Each structure stands twice: as C-alpha cells, then as structure tokens.
C-alpha cells in the first residue's frame, strides 16, 4: 500500500536560502556604486558642520584636501587641540605651502589655476586654526577654497 505512505517524521523542511546571495549582492552593488575608496586614513575627528547654501564640488581630481580637527581616540598622544592633517599625517601650519606645491606639481600645468582647496574641518575646531590655514593659502596664492559641509539644516 505504498500509495498511502506516511510522510517522514515531523521534520521541518530546510528554509530555502537560494535568494540570500542575491540580496547580499544587491547590497554589495549599492555600496560599490555609492562609495569611493578611502584616500586618507583620518587620524582626526571629522564631523563636518551643516549648511544649506552649498555648491557641489565636481572634478574630484582638481581638489586638494586639508583636514583639521581634534586627534581621534587612537591618537590621543597628539593632544586634544585641533590639528591639521595632510596626506595621512599630522602637519604644522608651515607645512601647508610645501603640500600645495607638491599637489600642484603632480597635476598638469594647465590645470593648476583651477585647483580648489577643500577644507574639511571638524565643527568643534576653532577659527584661529582656520585663519592660520587661510593666511598660509593666501601666501602660496591658492585662493579658491571650499568649506566642505554636510548638506542639511544649520543647527544652532
């Protein structure tokens, strides 16, 4: 009477996970498209301030980045005052001129006048440091700057 064979014990059938890879791949592709490779390892806290009158920085290759902020958790030995970071390491204000010169040398000559300096500064930093950076940039004639901010409502 095999027609009425009893079903095998009360085992729960295995959950079909065949679509799991698809879901993960979807996430993966989203991240591949929406993000860029990290250029510099940040050694500082970098919570950018908010602003809503922003302009987009296009032509990524024409941007020089200057980071500033308080050293982050792992770099406590460098103090708690806001510092400048250029290319993976802390720098003093007087090293900015050399940094700009090096960046300019690495670009094609005709593009040099279009270079923009993006200041990525932590919102807790104070203006003394920024003023020094700006003064230094004026000395080397790098006048186009951009205060990089997050897009959003200005918070008080």
């Amino acid at each position: 009477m095999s027609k009425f064979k009893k079903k095998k014990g009360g085992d729960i059938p295995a959950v079909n996970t065949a679509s799991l890879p698809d879901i993960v791949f979807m996430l993966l592709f989203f991240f591949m498209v929406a993000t860029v490779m990290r250029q510099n390892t940040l050694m500082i806290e970098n919570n950018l301030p908010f602003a809503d009158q922003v302009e987009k920085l296009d032509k990524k290759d024409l941007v020089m980045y200057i980071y500033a902020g308080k050293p982050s958790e792992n770099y406590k030995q460098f103090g708690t005052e806001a510092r400048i970071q250029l290319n993976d390491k802390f720098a003093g204000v007087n090293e900015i001129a050399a940094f700009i010169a090096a960046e300019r040398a690495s670009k094609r000559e005709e593009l040099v006048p279009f270079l923009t300096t993006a200041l990525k500064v932590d919102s807790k930093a104070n203006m003394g440091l920024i003023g020094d950076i700006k003064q230094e940039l004026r000395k080397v004639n790098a006048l186009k700057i951009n205060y990089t901010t997050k897009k959003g409502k200005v918070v008080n």
Partner: protein
Amino acid sequence: MAKRAAPEVNAGSMADIAFLLLIFFLVTTTIETDSGINRKLPPMEESEEDVIIKEKNIFTVIINKHDQLLVEDEVMELKDLRAAAIEFLDNGGDGSCSYCNGSKDPKSSDNPDKAIISLANDRETSYESYISVQNELVAAYNVLRDKRSQALHGKPFSELEANYNDVNWPGNKELLKKQIDQIKVDYPQKLSEVIQK
C-alpha cells in the same frame, strides 16, 4: 531513455562569498561629502591701499568667542541674520538702484554694488558657528539673486546656473551666460573678512 535530472549545484556558499566582498567594501570605502561653500580668498597684496568706504555701506558682523553675534553694533540671533542682511543689501538708499525693494533708508547702504558685508571673528570662535554665519550671508545674496532672476526671466537664479552647467541643456548658452552675469552685476557678492590679529 528516461531523462536524468541534472544534479543541483550547491550554492550555499555563494552568500558567504558575497558577504565577504560586501564587508570588504564596507570597510575600505567611504561615502564622500563633496559639497560645500565656495569662497575666494583675497590675494596677498604688497601695496596697502586704503579704500575709503562710507560707514553706512558696511554691514559688520562680528562673532565673538562665545559664538554670539554682533551685527551693526547690536546683538542678534542667527535666525534673524539672513533677513537683516537682505534688508541691508536691498536698501537702495541713494535711489540709483531701480530694482531694489528696500526701504530706501538713507542711513543704510546706497545700492547693492556699494554694499559690503564685513565678517570678523575671534580666534576662539567655533568653526561650526562661523560656517552657519557664512551660510546665512551667502543665503541672503542667493535670495536676492533669485528674486531678481524671477523678475527678469521668470526662473530662479539657481535654475539658470544649473542650466548653464548642464551639458545637455538645449537652449542658448551665450544668452544664458549674459543673463547670469547681469544678475551677478546687479547683486555682486561683496563679502570681506577681517583678518584676525
């Protein structure tokens, strides 16, 4: 002959491989913020030429080290700054500005071309409040330009600029460039910063 079903490939580890890739991307990449407030620094000049500007044409904004605002010698909240700046820029005191909608107060700026906003800050001012003030002042200019553009061309200024930068925009770019430049002449951005001593 009976058809033999092809054996199913075990794809159980595919998810693991995908996860591995995903985690690699999560760790090595960042979402870049690539927008901000563009500014131009004044060039270093040897010759210190004193330009005489009438006191009434200068709108002074001072941020102190406690992030408090002093605007035209009065304490002000950040939320009122934009309106105050617009009122100052759009005043049209000497009547030479035909498109200004201001109150024509003789004690305030003569016309948008002469009006200058001067921003001063302390060394201990926080970057955050400095950016919010910059943002409000830029917003004041943008509001006026938008209004002017709306009156002249029926479109906000930001749309004109977006069209100009859009490669696929079908219209006449040269005409558009002229329109943009005209509005920039009508409301020039004159924001000067006092160098900290």
